[in-house]
Every structure is written in structure tokens, then in C-alpha cells.
């Protein structure tokens, strides 16, 4: 389903890690789309495959032991998986930028912050060093860091400020897509609020689409237009934010919501999902979630569920619960990917 309107179109992406203990099915037949100017929340727990997917887009899956087994990653219509390393280097930072969780290790401790931003600029633009430093200054202002601090080293900044520098570097070349991998998880709550506010602000000023990888549904509610929930290497639910929060369909999504203590209500006991994430070298047959699913039917252990469109733009990979919010008896349409 190639569509030039889509910024990002991932089709049947499969990435495995080949290890001595077995094949880790990190990402398994993943399908995902993102339009220009959209913010996508990419939600899942540890081991679901979100970071691997992000690395796959960037062409940074460590090889060995990682291997892209199949699929396409169409960025502005072109398949990134078919590009050479040289072409990918141009794209990284230039068109697609990525920021990571830990600002402590993301910055070079022996370079001043303006030089680090300038480095990014120089890599992708034919400008002089002076011009690059100018641009660095602009970026620092944009992320709320005073000019006087441009020549400071990373260790002189606090965690939140470091993350701002990281954002400045990522956005220095006006990338079309920014992938943020748990950018605020390592930060205190009040600092996180500052950084999220910044990202909100920037969204208005800069035309960069965002893929926000997180396990925090609160952040998703605030920042994202669409949400993809990931489990055991697959997207199990994909919907506009409002639909996901008001009409969560997949049992795993429901379980995630139940696991978060509600700030507004009192609850004696949380409705937990029993069991653990499956072993990625030995995924269950059929639907990977079925051993833990309270609604599992017999067919769930033998058939891999397809993504069903249960409402316009709202997809869930669960035939059992697909009709949960339906007012009519009409069967949901299967999506051919």
C-alpha cells in the first residue's frame, strides 16, 4: 500500500537477533504508518521491540547479532532498507534524527555543547564553521538555553538541560522525522514537565514529525496524535489517541490501562495481567498474548490474528474483542498490509 502522502510506511518488518541461546524475534511482521506533521506514540514494555524498530528505521541495528529478515521501511516513498550505508549516513541527522533516553551518555563529555550542535550541522550542510556555530546558538536559544552557556561542557548542565542540548542537536538540521526513545524517563517529574513543554512548543515552531517511544501512557495522552501499542514484536493496537484512551480494544491495551494506579480514584487492587512477557526466542503459537489473555478463545493459540479495522483509523489485532465497541453486528474489515 504505497502512498506518497505517508511520511513513514513500515511494512511487514521483521528483525531478529541471532544469539547462542536462540533467535530473538525482536520485531515480527510489524506494520506502521505515520503522516507528515503527525506525532506517533509508540508504547510497549521492555522487550516489546520498540527500540529495535527505531534502530531499524535508522539503520542502526547492531549487526551482528541483529539481522533484518524482511519487510520494507518506506520513508517519503523510498525503502530505507535498500539504501547504502553512505546514503543512510546522509539521512541520519539530516532527515531522520533520533534522541535517546540517557542524556548522560548521549553527549560527548569533552566537547562544548555548541560544537556538538555545530558538528551535526556541518555533517549535513555545506557551510563554514562559523555559520555552523551561529546555527548552534540559534538552536540553543530555541531549546531555552542561554547564549552564555554555549561554551560550557555537558557536565556543567543538569539532566534536564542536557536533554535539551540533545534535542537541539537532533533538530539542528531540520529533520523531517524525529524519533525520541524514552527521552524523559531518566528525568525527574518536574524536569520532565519542562522538557515535554519544550517539545510541545517546538512542535508549533518546527515542522518535524515525531515518533515518541515510551511506556508512559500519560505522555502519550499529552503529546501524541496517534498511538501504536506494541507487544512481543508486533503492533497489537493502532489508533488515534482519543480512540485508544476512550475505547481501548486489545486485551493487552486494556491490561496496560488497568495496571496504572488511577490518580483520581481509589482502588483496592489493580487488575493485573497475570504472567510475564513471553520469551522472545520461543514465542507462543498463534497470538503471542494468548497465554495471558483473559478473553482467549481456542482459535487464539493457533491463528496469528490480523490487524482488523474496528473503526475508521482504529486497528486492533484481536478478533475476539474487535466487536467490543461496535454498535452493529457488522464484522470488522480485515486490513491487507
Amino acid at each position: 500500500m504505497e502512498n506518497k502522502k505517508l511520511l513513514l510506511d513500515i511494512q511487514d518488518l521483521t528483525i531478529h537477533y541471532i544469539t547462542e541461546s536462540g533467535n530473538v524475534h525482536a520485531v515480527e511482521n510489524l506494520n506502521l504508518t505515520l503522516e507528515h506533521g503527525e506525532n506517533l506514540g509508540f508504547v510497549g514494555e521492555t522487550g516489546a521491540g520498540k527500540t529495535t524498530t527505531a534502530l531499524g528505521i535508522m539503520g542502526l541495528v547492531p549487526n551482528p547479532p541483529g539481522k533484518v529478515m524482511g519487510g520494507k521501511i518506506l520513508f517519503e516513498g523510498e525503502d530505507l532498507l535498500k539504501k547504502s550505508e553512505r546514503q543512510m549516513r546522509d539521512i541520519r541527522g539530516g532527515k531522520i534524527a533520533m534522541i535517546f533516553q540517557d542524556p548522560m551518555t548521549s553527549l560527548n563529555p569533552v566537547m562544548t555543547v555548541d560544537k556538538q550542535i555545530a558538528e551535526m550541522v556541518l555533517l549535513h550542510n555545506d557551510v563554514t564553521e562559523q555559520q555552523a556555530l551561529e546555527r548552534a546558538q540559534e538552536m540553543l536559544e530555541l531549546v531555552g538555553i542561554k547564549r552564555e552557556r554555549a561554551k560550557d561542557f555537558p557536565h556543567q548542565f543538569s539532566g534536564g538541560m542536557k536533554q535539551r542540548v540533545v534535542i537541539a542537536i537532533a533538530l539542528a538540521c531540520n529533520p523531517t522525522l524525529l524519533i525520541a526513545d524514552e527521552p524523559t524517563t531518566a528525568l525527574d517529574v518536574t524536569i520532565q514537565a519542562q522538557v515535554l513543554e519544550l517539545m510541545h512548543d517546538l512542535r508549533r515552531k518546527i515542522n518535524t514529525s515525531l515518533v515518541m517511544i515510551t511506556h508512559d501512557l500519560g505522555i502519550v495522552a499529552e503529546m501524541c496524535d496517534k498511538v501504536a501499542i506494541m507487544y512481543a514484536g508486533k503492533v497489537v493496537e493502532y489508533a488515534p489517541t482519543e480512540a485508544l484512551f476512550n475505547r481501548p480494544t486489545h486485551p493487552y491495551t486494556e491490561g496496560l490501562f488497568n495496571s496504572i494506579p488511577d490518580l483520581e480514584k481509589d482502588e483496592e487492587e489493580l487488575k493485573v495481567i497475570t504472567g510475564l512477557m513471553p520469551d522472545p526466542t520461543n514465542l507462543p503459537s498463534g497470538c503471542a498474548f494468548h497465554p495471558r489473555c483473559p478473553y482467549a478463545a481456542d482459535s487464539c493459540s493457533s491463528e496469528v490474528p490480523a490487524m482488523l479495522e474496528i473503526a475508521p483509523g482504529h486497528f486492533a489485532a484481536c478478533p475476539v474483542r474487535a466487536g467490543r465497541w461496535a454498535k452493529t453486528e457488522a464484522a470488522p474489515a480485515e486490513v491487507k498490509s
Partner: protein
Amino acid sequence: MSAQAPVKMKSEAGLLDIWNRLRKNHLALFGLVIVVLLVFFAITADFIAPYRYDQQNLMKAFESPSKEHFFGTDEFGRDIFSRIIHGSRISLQVGMIAVGIAVVFGGLLGSVAGYYGGRIDNLIMRAMDILLSIPSILLAIAIAASLGPGLYNMMVAVGISSTPQYARIIRGSVLSLRGQEFVEAAKAVGSSDTRIILKHIIPNCLAPIIVQSTLGVASAILTAAGLSFIGLGIQPPTPEWGAMLSGGREYIRDYAYMTIFPGLAIMITILALNFLGDGLRDVLDPKLKR
């Protein structure tokens, strides 16, 4: 979770796993084979050596390597091959006892210094620094000279001169482990300091100790050879390789084989131990880092 393979390895420190990884390092494997061979020789020397190490036969002195005497004979007609095989027992003994002394004392000093810190740490480590500042061979010479010649005195000398390195290594490991939560947990249930050091900390320091010990045996053998070479240490007719080297010095022009074979024995042994030690380090150390 930054850009690393987010893969969870099933077993971290299982012995089988260590063996498998070691196997892949050919040099280390070679080293292991040689070491095993050496141990075998050391144990069975009395049986496999064709001659006794002190068996003199002046009629057959200075014979070149032949079918009867694989490595030839020395100035007293003793079979060099047999002496080398017996020498392996000496060298291994020296290596293991010297390292044993160093590990025990160095371990004791290092753990106390690392665990308690403060003044005790300062005191112990400055003492170690003093020892370290003296070139180890000079230190060994000084100790051996004051204790008098003989195999056992030599081992003590080598052991004492190696102690500071072990103290340092173990102190480093203890320092990094003492802040770990499982040590706090042990304290929280009332464990004594001794128990914490012996049961919780030391077992988790084994990897660097093993690596250093393997390399340490090599260095102890070299030091012992050096001491014997200059006349301290063992006494004739004990067939220590270094002494054999020294004894063959005068005859090196005409009967080079008298020095070549002991020299080769030393060289191969040290190489083998170094390869093994390096291989063990590659296998054990990175896994300690999480």
C-alpha cells in the same frame, strides 16, 4: 535503553558457558593444552623421565641431542630432557606457591583496605605502594638474599614481592562491590563484616583474581628463573630451568643446546600461561560489567 542490542543473555556466568567461549579462542586453547601438559609432566616426572635428573655419567658429557638423549647431556653427563621434565615440577611449584602466598596475603590486605576505607585503607595501600616502588626482581633478590638460598625461600621471596599487585586488584573489586545493594541487604539482616567480605564480596571478585593468578604464575616462574640464574634460589643439582640456563652459559658457543632447551621451556610455558590468562580475561571480565 540506548542503542544496544536489547537482548537478554540466558546464562551469564555458567561454567559451561565460560568453557564454550574459551574454546573459541585458539590461542587460549593452545595455552590451556600446554599448561595441562606441564601439570601432567610435573606429576608423572618420576615415571616418564628416561633418566634421573641427577644421574651423572661423565663419559657421556656434552653429547648432542640424539635418540638416547633427546636434548643431549650437560657437563656432568646428565640427560637434559629428563632434567627439563623434572624442572616443570619445580617451576609449577614455585609458580603456584608464590602466587598462592600473594593471593592470600594480598587478598587479605586488599579486602580489609577496600572494605573499611579511610585510614586503614591509606595505611595498607601506602605500604603496598612502597613495596611496588621497588622493582620486583630487586625485591625478590633482597628477600632471597636475606632468607638464604633454597627453593622454599625463593618461593616466599617471589610471593611477597607479588603481593602488592593482588592487594590492589582485590581492593579495587571490593571497592566497587561494597556499594552494591546486595551488600547493604546483607547488612540489613545483621551479617557481620567478616561474613560479608568472605561470603558476599570475595566470591564476586573471583574473575580478576583468576586472570591475574594465571598471569602471575608466569611471572613468578620468570622471576624464579631469574633468581636461580644469578645464583640465589635453588641449589644444584635441582633441575630448575633458570639454573640450567645459567649453568649452560659458559658452554653456549660450543654446546648451545644446553641453554636452548631450558630457554625454550621457559618461553613456551610463559607464553602458554599468558595466552590462557588473556583468554580468561576476555571471557570473564566483560561479563562482570553490566
